[in-house]
């Protein structure tokens, strides 16, 4: 059995930052593995530990810089990785869901997995849609926002819980092959061991261009155009308590007592 787990290196923006055209200026970005993908990787590695003969392959769309992040997934037990990048992607401001779907579909065709795990969303552009879109494109069944997963390999079914709003969970049976989008909190992502980190150095990260995947530049073209990026206006009309921590706490304590807090 083969599990494909998609991962993405995402940029987090520092507290104070400046924009540079349609992007956040590079010096204010810190790169890391997307938070949701941490959980998807852990779910994939656990499947490999609990079942015989499972290979876990991670797929990413990202420039060479992202290999450092991908290697962290390899250090946690992913067997090997595929990294899709192409010069044609260098100048794309917004890689939309359709384009990601076309690239990842080509990887799926190449790898032929039985199960695909993705994060629910990426915390940079937060479309939250690639997993389900991919499932439709490759004709897999799917479930979005999974926070519990019990795989019945022999029965070719994934028994999942989907985390709905308002503290309600939906119990669903999903026929395999399937794409599951993994929610944070489903497991406790492990830390990479020193041994894992050493082993990851010799694991394969296979670079693939559009032509390697049998695609051309049209695959990353989009009908969506990013036309403006700006800092939202702050709407705060809060009363701020200034001064040192002691002064701030004293003023807050006065307000809290006025509201009847702590006065029993």
């Amino acid at each position, binding site marked *: 059995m083969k599990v494909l787990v998609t991962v993405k290196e995402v940029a987090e923006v520092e507290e104070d930052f400046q924009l540079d055209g349609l992007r956040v200026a590079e010096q204010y970005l810190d790169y890391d593995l997307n938070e949701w993908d941490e959980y998807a990787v852990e779910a994939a590695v656990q499947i490999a530990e609990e079942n015989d003969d499972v290979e876990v392959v991670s797929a990413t769309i990202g420039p060479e810089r992202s290999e450092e992040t991908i290697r962290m997934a390899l250090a946690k037990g992913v067997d090997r990785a595929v990294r899709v990048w192409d010069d044609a992607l260098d100048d794309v401001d917004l890689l939309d869901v*359709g384009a990601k779907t076309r690239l990842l579909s080509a990887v799926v065709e190449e790898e032929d997995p039985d199960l695909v795990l993705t994060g629910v969303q990426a915390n940079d552009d937060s479309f939250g849609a690639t997993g389900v879109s991919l499932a439709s494109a490759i004709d897999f069944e799917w479930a979005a926002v999974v926070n519990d997963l019990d795989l019945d390999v022999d029965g070719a079914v994934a028994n999942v819980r989907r985390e709905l709003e308002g503290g309600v969970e939906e119990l669903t049976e999903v026929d395999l092959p399937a794409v599951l989008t993994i929610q944070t909190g489903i497991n406790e992502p492990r830390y990479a061991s020193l041994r894992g980190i050493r082993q990851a150095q010799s694991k394969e990260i296979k670079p693939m261009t559009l032509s390697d995947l049998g695609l051309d530049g049209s695959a990353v073209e989009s009908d969506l155009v990013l036309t403006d990026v700006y800092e939202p206006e702050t709407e705060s009309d809060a009363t*701020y308590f200034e001064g040192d921590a002691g002064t701030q706490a004293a003023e807050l*304590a006065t307000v809290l007592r006025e509201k009847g807090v702590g006065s029993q």
Partner: protein
Amino acid sequence: MSDVLAITEHRRGDLRDVSFELVTAGADLVGDTGGDLHLAVIGGDVDGFAEALSLDGVDTIHTVSEGDEFNHDVYVQAITALYEELDPTYILAGNTVNGLDYAPAVAEALDLPLVTDAVGLQNDGTLEVTREMYASKVESTVEVDADRAVVTIRPSEWDAAEAAGEPAVEAFDFTLDESRVRSRVTGFEEVGGGDVDISEADVLVSVGRGIEEEENIELVQNLADALGATLSSSRPIVDNGWLPKDRQVGQSGKVVTPKVYLAVGISGAVQHVAGMKGAETIIAINTDPDAPIFDIADYGIVGDLFDVVPELIERFE
């Protein structure tokens, strides 16, 4: 002329609020173009839902009587069939857990561009969508350079439509391909069962990522004790297993409306705010002056919780 097909949402017998917000967003989008606003009601008590959705601005409600609860395979088939029949310019859906379980598949199947989590829509011949990026630190405008698109709207960003109207209600003639239904909902469960009900508390001290380490939870627990308050949290604290799930405030946790909500080290992500914006008085302590929590706070302290909280505890002991 732009026709809009908006897909309403229900769960366990009730229409969800986003259905009424979709009517407002859809009517705005149709605007003066002379187009029609179509609603789809798929599954459940379709006639009852159609009656509740007979609102001003809606032209036609299409009912698809298929199943009791949401199933994305049914939704995708029904929506693609409706699309073929009605040929709308835009398909609108809620950016909800279920919306994101079918809308991307609909867009893919129909080869339409998809824009999710819209917080604003403008249609002057070209559709422009306002979205947030990087955990709400940046806003962006996305122009849809295509004739048609699928768009999901963020809940609570549009007002719920209320004014009654007289749309036509039509049962949509649709045959489900059962062989393409490859997932089955077997039940629902409510999270919780703990001994604390945070939605009943008058005063909540709520802790977020800023607490950094599990052993520091004790500090905010001490504050809650000193104030006679109940301890709640944002999502990352529960994801880390530092507090049980029934303490989580937010979209996927509990919605709370206490008299006082003291947010300690919580940045105020939209999913969290959805669960606590109804609090009477909101107080936030955060190191980041630009944290979105201050946008909805009545009182704010820009400072380090590890300095402020011990001082505050001292004043209540």
